[in-house]
């Protein structure tokens, strides 16, 4: 059971380039989330999804887009990368109901130069 899988683990982008961070989970979780984590700043929610075809903005959505065509996959798209998007990105998933907490992936370290 792989849990939440994120690819790539590391990436360096040039300013203005675009990329997609992949996230897939095999636990049949309805809810999926994208966070960014910057040193000393904690986890900030970018986007989340409560099921296939349904997505919504978190607290820092600007510069990002998401889609959720299947229960398993929740890719995060960066358009026109900027140095401010240098961060560690975590995908997470959960069942409905708070009892289970979130399962996180191992993260993608992105540097924009």
């Amino acid at each position: 059971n792989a849990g939440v899988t994120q690819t790539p683990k590391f990436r360096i982008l040039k300013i203005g380039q675009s990329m997609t961070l992949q996230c897939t989970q095999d636990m049949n979780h309805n809810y999926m989330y994208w966070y960014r984590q910057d040193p000393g700043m904690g986890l900030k929610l970018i986007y989340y999804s409560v099921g296939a075809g349904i997505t919504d903005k978190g607290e820092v959505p600007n510069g990002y887009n998401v889609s959720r065509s299947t229960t398993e996959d929740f890719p995060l798209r960066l358009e026109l990368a900027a140095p401010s998007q240098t961060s560690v990105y975590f995908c997470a998933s959960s069942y409905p109901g708070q009892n289970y907490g979130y399962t996180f992936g191992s993260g993608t370290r992105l540097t924009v130069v």
Partner: protein
Amino acid sequence: QKEVEQDPGPLSVPEGAIVSLNCTYSNSAFQYFMWYRQYSRKGPELLMYTYSSGNKEDGRFTAQVDKSSKYISLFIRDSQPSDSATYLCAIGSGNNRLAFGKGNQVVVIP
């Protein structure tokens, strides 16, 4: 006022000491209280979960919740070098959205 406050200062303790971490929150609607542990260059993993005031123990770890004061704590007894990690509190109100604290980096020195 932020939903969850966790002083992000690092903490160094000698092996065997008790580690004490805490968070405060502002919204009394929060009902679910969690602590996540995050090792360096890894994703957070759920360490402790509770939804009621009082103490919950799991081995060397104790999670404490005081809803009247809106205050949660994590205690680690007999700390080990393997406990060196960042600890994040997380609080939820039942809508599957968690509010995370900024995290405390704990270093246990052998």
